[in-house]
């Protein structure tokens, strides 16, 4: 299966993507992640202003069957939350890369980006699955 994996995004090994625009990072889950999850029926996200830490859980997505933690690609402060997902969690399945973004984070340090994967490396990761 061919997944849409934008070249300019960063990726976590837990299948989140991070799109960096100066110090603002938009976070979502990858197409691979949504395929594995199945139909998303519930999304739990942090509130604006909340501090988050790289590599720790900042929310969950649930399919009918399972609960999956969301892991933060960078440390910082949540400045915007995609509240439309609360009412329409299925849009995460339809367009995880764009409409299905989860949160925007004001990043503390861009040095942390070095801990993330770029597209070629992430493609290799999911090729083994």
């Amino acid at each position: 299966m061919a997944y849409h994996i934008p070249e300019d995004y960063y990726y976590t090994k837990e299948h989140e993507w991070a799109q960096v625009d100066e110090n603002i990072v938009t976070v979502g889950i990858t197409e691979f992640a949504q395929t594995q999850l199945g139909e998303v029926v519930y999304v739990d996200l942090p509130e604006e202003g909340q501090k988050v830490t790289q590599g720790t859980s900042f929310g969950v997505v649930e399919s009918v069957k399972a609960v999956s933690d969301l892991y933060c690609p960078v440390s910082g402060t949540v400045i915007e939350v995609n509240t439309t997902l609360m009412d329409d969690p299925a849009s995460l399945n339809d367009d995880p890369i764009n409409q299905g973004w989860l949160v925007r984070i004001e990043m503390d340090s861009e040095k942390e980006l070095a801990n993330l994967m770029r597209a070629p490396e992430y493609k290799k990761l999911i090729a083994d699955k």
Partner: protein
Amino acid sequence: MQRTPLYNDHVKLNAKIVEFAGWEMPIQYSGLKEEHLNVRKNVGLFDVSHMGEIRVKGPHAIKTLQWLTTNNVEALEKGQAQYSLLPNSDGGLVDDIIVYCLEKNSDYLVCVNASNEKKDWEHFQKNNQGAELINESSAWGQIAVQGPKAQELIEKVTGIKASAMKPFQTQSMKWQGSELIFASTGYTGEKGGEIFIESSSTSKLWNQLLEKGQDLGVLPIGLGARDTLRTEMKYSLYGHEINDVSNPYEAGLGWVIKPAAKDFLGKTPIVTRKEQGLTRSLIGFKTIERGIPRQDYTLHDLAGNKIGFVTSGTHSPSLDAAIGIGYVQTQFSNLSTEITVDIRGKKIKSIVCKTPFINN
């Protein structure tokens, strides 16, 4: 890892395969929600070949089953089936089962959970009261056909008039040269039944059901939807609602305990606990605030005190709402009692509701 006779068919159907109780099983095909709703609306096929079958035969068959199970096997006539439990000597449960009477007094088939098959087989051998025991688990495939159009499909393919049968009846026949036992039982709350068929013919039957069911809207259904369908009915699943320390009265299964009719393993501890007064009971609840309850989440009263725990929880595709099953202290089990479920540290308001969760 074991595979059912339908493994290759699942792969052909593009199923997502997962490990379940040592078996490679389809968890979903087209999508859990679609499959679930299709069983409620049309008809679905389930591969349940992983379930175990223990044959109990001979002059001491009835004595053995009466001792090992809680329901009254004497009451079963040829062609009838009954839901029952295998208690342990401490009054907990080894498994929940269905007993099929193939020949009164001398020939019974016991269908057991895949996850408990090895344990149950040892339990039967250890506590046998002189019956001839045969583990036929690998000899049989099993296909469940469930939904409002299931009876029509079963008749089309096997000729059995399923619509003329009451629930929990069986019919044996030769189907295209193979042994077939049809039972009007199921795990979804829908019409239809479960078909035991010789392993070598299971794939042939599966494919004929799929082909001849096209115009009825048949779909193959994975274990994911099997679980949400049974949860909407509040049917027990071993390892969730019941386990080796469960009291069947607390689990709401008192209707299959027949202490007046007979003696059985674990009878004294089971009955004593009821006589002393049950301290908890199994309830169904819906969340009022957003959140999905899951197994082992804790249940609380409105003051925050822990009053129980969740045994099963999911998003109900039929209701498009979060539902849960759990044990609570008996004083919180009345309908409409407000409780909370702790979901990742947040107390989510919920209400005890009537079950089954759906009107069927």
